[in-house]
């Protein structure tokens, strides 16, 4: 997990749509330019997080999958 993120969010074990809802909630408490690192186990989150960022305008800096765990780094805009 990226260590230089402003905040991190653990959504492991949660299923659709909870990872997105929690991400949105976390981002709304942050200010523009700050970054959020999200961990998830929901396989749907890989596509959902892309769609979420595309729609809301937040920048998806990176996303990766590793043995059933997904990591996302998002910059709040």
């Amino acid at each position, binding site marked *: 997990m990226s260590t230089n993120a402003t905040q991190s969010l653990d959504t492991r074990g949660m299923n659709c*749509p909870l990872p997105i809802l929690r991400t*949105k909630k976390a981002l709304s408490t942050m200010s523009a330019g700050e970054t959020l690192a999200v961990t998830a186990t929901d396989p749907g989150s890989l596509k959902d997080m892309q769609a979420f960022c595309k729609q809301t305008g937040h920048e998806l800096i990176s996303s990766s999958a590793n043995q059933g765990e997904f990591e996302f780094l998002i910059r709040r805009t």
Partner: protein
Amino acid sequence: MGAADKLIPENLDKSRFDQWFDQRFESKMAEREAAHVPSLSIIATKGTMDWAYPPFILASTASALGWDVSVFFTFYGLELLKKDLHLEISPLGNPSMPMKMPFGPQWLKDINWNVPNAVMAGLPGFEKVATGLMKQTVKSKGVATIDELRHACIEADVKLFACQMTVDLFGYSQDEFIPEIEGWIGAASFLPTAQKSDVCLFV
């Protein structure tokens, strides 16, 4: 010659004007699209635990995407707005519902118990058991409870409307319902909202 063409001065270079117009039109449309907040209207008509999921999942997700969301709860859908949620599922007459054990060894969990309708109907408490098993499955799979999703909707300013006619029809009183209800309205009030929304769903 159309009526619009008559408005253009005769000495105007029409092809240049058309070019200017096309570009201007494109940029104005793009501006408008960028500023447009998408909206979703849902009509929720079912009051069982399984059917409570689609409207609340779609509404909470849409609000997370920044959309304006309104949900109209009518008929059995009103159950989803009660202060105390007592939602059950009924596998009876629903051949698509998998009947699986949420606990035990994997081989046991993989079995789909094909219980005939006649047996389901004849066994007292069958729906209570099925509801209990479904709740267990939801919990173990990390799926949100209806209460959680409803709370997420309220937090995200999803507008929840209750059908006044149903309240009268079933003899409910308004204080049985959560106080966050935006309005007690009828079809004539909700349809204009639905008409203006980008996405409208009947669940």
